[in-house]
């Protein structure tokens, strides 16, 4: 797989603008091929059901724009404006790619693993655009042009959507951590877990004599699967417990989902979860404990004589009200 340092795009962007300055146009902004076409290399999903996702590339996007008759490649004045627009174009494409990727890998969730490059690219472009030293022709920062223009703030909202989706899924926890950044390499736990899931599914597959394909579990169950795969299923659960310890409440969503699916297959489809629970023992225990309060209260009622109060008579000149209630 292609490794992209997270600030790669950043450096690239800054360089680009120092080199090309304001003369850059849409044509000039072409990100390196590995950034654009990274998607095709990523898809190692074994699923035969769906065809590969076709992600929109930079060139596609420009074509779409052009067919709309919307071009911005003319002379200097508009060219100046376009440096911001160029970035927005790039961002729009990246965001579209991310959305497409995310939805495509939504069920079962594989977003974290599959969409990292597109996510990274979208965020990188956004960062340069907003925080980088990018200006339009009048020397106004792009960030300001985008932020101070309207109240809908489409660009910002879109970026937030991407960020929220990513962080809600705790996707970064699938990846290795550099000093301060996330490195685009699945971490060891994740790799191990993925491998174990594969193995589990393989076990399911083998012991059901090929009747099992993940995500389309069989209707009728062969009883041997429970015994055959119990060990590996248990290992998987134990590993997941480790994951939960490592990232409390923030296990990478891909893994959470595959665990959930595996568990459902195991207990709902294969009916392998057998829970006993000693009903008799529990009942005896409960009856015993429930009888204790009765014993206690009846006992204290019988044993302890009701303590009487000693009344004190204060002296008054006139006799007090009658001790009976004075009803209206």
């Amino acid at each position: 797989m292609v490794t992209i340092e997270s600030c790669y795009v950043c450096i690239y962007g800054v360089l680009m603008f120092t080199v090309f300055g304001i003369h850059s146009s849409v044509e000039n902004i072409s990100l390196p091929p590995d950034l654009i076409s990274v998607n095709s290399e990523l898809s190692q999903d074994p699923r035969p059901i769906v065809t590969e996702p076709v992600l929109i590339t930079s060139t596609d996007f420009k074509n779409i724009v052009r067919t709309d008759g919307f071009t911005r490649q003319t002379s200097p004045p508009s060219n100046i404006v376009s440096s911001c627009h160029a970035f927005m174009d790039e961002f729009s494409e990246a965001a579209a790619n991310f959305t497409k990727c995310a939805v495509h890998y939504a069920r079962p969730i594989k977003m974290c693993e599959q969409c990292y490059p597109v996510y990274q690219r979208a965020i990188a472009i956004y960062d340069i655009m907003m925080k980088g030293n990018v200006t339009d022709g009048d020397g106004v920062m792009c960030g300001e042009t985008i932020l101070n223009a309207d109240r809908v703030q489409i660009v910002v909202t879109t970026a937030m959507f991407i960020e929220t989706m990513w962080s809600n899924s705790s996707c970064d926890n699938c990846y290795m951590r550099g000093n301060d950044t996330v490195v685009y390499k699945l971490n060891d736990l994740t790799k191990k877990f993925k491998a174990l899931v594969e193995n589990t599914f393989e076990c399911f597959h083998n012991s059901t004599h090929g009747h099992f394909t993940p995500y389309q579990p069989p209707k009728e169950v062969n009883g041997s699967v429970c015994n055959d795969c119990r060990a590996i299923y248990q290992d998987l659960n134990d590993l997941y417990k480790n994951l939960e310890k490592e990232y409390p409440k923030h296990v990478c969503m891909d893994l959470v989902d595959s665990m959930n699916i595996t568990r459902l297959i195991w207990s709902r489809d294969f009916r392998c979860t057998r829970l006993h629970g000693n009903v008799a023992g529990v009942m005896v225990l409960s009856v015993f404990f429930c009888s204790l309060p009765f014993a206690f209260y009846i006992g204290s009622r019988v044993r302890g004589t009701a303590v009487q109060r000693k009344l004190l008579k204060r002296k008054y000149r006139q006799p007090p009200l009658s001790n009976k209630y004075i009803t209206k």
Partner: protein
Amino acid sequence: MCPFVDIEQITDASIDEYVECPVDSKLLNAKFQSLDYDNCENVLYQREERQKNHRQLLKQQFARWVVMCFIGIFTAIIACSIDIAIHRLSTVKYSLLKSYFDETMKTSYLFIPVLLWIAWNSGFVLIAAILVAYGEPVAAGSGIPQIKCFLNGVMIPHVVRLFTLFCKVVGVVLSVVGGLAIGKEGPMIHSGAVVAAGISQGRSSTFRRDFKIFTYFRTDTEKRDFVSGGAAAGVSAAFGAPVGGVLFSLEEGASFWNQALTWRIFFASMMSTFTLNMIQSYIHGVPWQLSYPGLLNFGQFSDISYTGAEIPIYLVMAVVGGLLGALFNHINLKLCIFRKRHIRTPLGQVLEAVLVAAMTAVAAFLLIYFVEDCQALGKDPIVHPLQMYCLDGQYSSMAAIWFQTPEQSVKSLFHDPPDSYRPLTVALFGIVYFLLATWTYGLSVPSGLFIPCLLTGAAWGRLIGISVRGVFPDAEWANPGKFALVGAAAQLGGVVRMTISLTVILIEATGSISFGFPIMIVLMVAKWVGDLFNEGLYDIHVKLAGVPILPWEPPHLTSNIMASEVMSHPVTTFDMNETVGHVVNVLKKDLHEGFPVVDHINPAPNQPGRSTFGLLRGTITRSQLIVLLKNKAFTDPTTGIRGSNRLTLDHFREIYPRFPKIEQIHITEREKACVINLVPYMNPAPYTVFDNTSLPRIFKLFRGLGLRHLVVVDKNNEVIGIVTRKDLARYRFESHKGSKGLEELQMSFN
């Protein structure tokens, strides 16, 4: 009712002759003394006042603010410690139980975790109950009734001692971790009050340490002001509700109120919330993010939306809350009367607490065992998901409610997504928790009442919410969490019958000002409905203890009762110059706390046909006399030698508030012949009323000025009687078997 027995003289020896009468809430306990919120402006006081200058006044004023500041800070620190301790210990508890349950579900040893659960609960509650039953009985319960009495002007022994604080704090942590159906909020409020009393007095009698600071605050009046600040800081720390804290002090406590004090109390409250939020922000890992929404006590209702059309539903819920609250109070009252009659030994109290703790575990387990409500893991933020009989990858949502502290359960019911609980789950949980909570309150452990009520209410509120959602599946407003909040408010309002402070506390703790109106309406209606049947639970417990508390208003139908009926009649008086021997004898024989000082008149008083006791010159209290005797402030009439140097107010402050008993003062035979001149020490201008003053008028004087004794004089300013708090508190307008009427309570010694 028991017959009266006429006793000529009240002496310790004669107590045994009294008629005995079963315990119930219609007796006043004679052991409670009043606090004196009226400054005694005697000669010593005037002398000191002359020496004061502007700088001293400024210093004193500044010291008030400093003390309030520290009250806020320390209260919050204590509250945080309670919070953290409970959180840590319960995390250990529930992880341990969860791992045992997970292990044994696959085998046939399910009874092991059940026994472990029972043992854990009983063990922790055992220690808590021992601390309270054998250590400091006044630390039992929520502490709010006691603080209420203190602020009302009744001295509850030991209520603001450091040892009480210790028992309360440790006890409440242990009992919450022990799984009882209680909260930690009431004890936090009590803690705030103890902190306030401790700091403002600049010493601790538990540790016998006197820091010699803030000596000028050693009077009942100043102490009361600080304690109301402490109570406010406690509320504020417990719920993160500074305004609610101030209003709580106003509503429940302070009978005496002014603008400057309110401002200072608000300061203490704010300091408390600020300190709390600061510490919490560190715990949540967002240091100094003081607006972090996770700091809100019951979690933020961010997307709460309500329309006017819902208000009828809320009104119905309020009525339900009022009815359930009245039922709660009724059951608890009957139970507590039983406890007072039959479970009187500390051992019995400890046993009962342990029993309830064990039964709580059993009840929780049975519910988890029988109610099958499985939810997919990962949907809700469950900390200790327990699988029980659910499929792999699912958890039992009944177990999820139980496997956390009650406070977190309230949060879950408020905020968990709409489909997290099946109706049966919340219904059964609500019923069982209601019964457990009624059973638990009044045990000999520190126990807050707020959280169990909120939790019960949240359960049935959520049930209604789920039903409403079933009827209007597409309605945006049909959010079960919101109905849980309304149910919680209704239930709590129905039980404690607090009004304005509760409304504000709930608004602040959930951060939803726009929802203030429904909360207020609900609390109002719940109180009205509940009041048809009985009183708020705090008042019930105050009365059960026989505390002579004075309510806001004089009882109805008393305008025709005159001072001459209310007052205690034969009055023990002192002359302005009394022999030591006589003073000691009177103090030993007489149980009264205040004595008029009189001039003798002719014909001699208290002769047949004349029932006055001399011309009123002032009043003096038992504690003052004891200080005089202790410091030997008398002169030998034969030699004219003074027993000691001139006393100052500092001599009185030194012993305040624990004056020794008369038996502890050693007086030699020779000293008994000496003479005390009471004039410099007595209150020269006591409040008096004529014998034809009506009861409501006397009541208002007591209530408004915080009096302890009120001398009744005739038209010649001759003493004919004395009115104390107990003489007033014995008149009560009560309902009895449906009919309401004025009733006169009797007094008892135990």
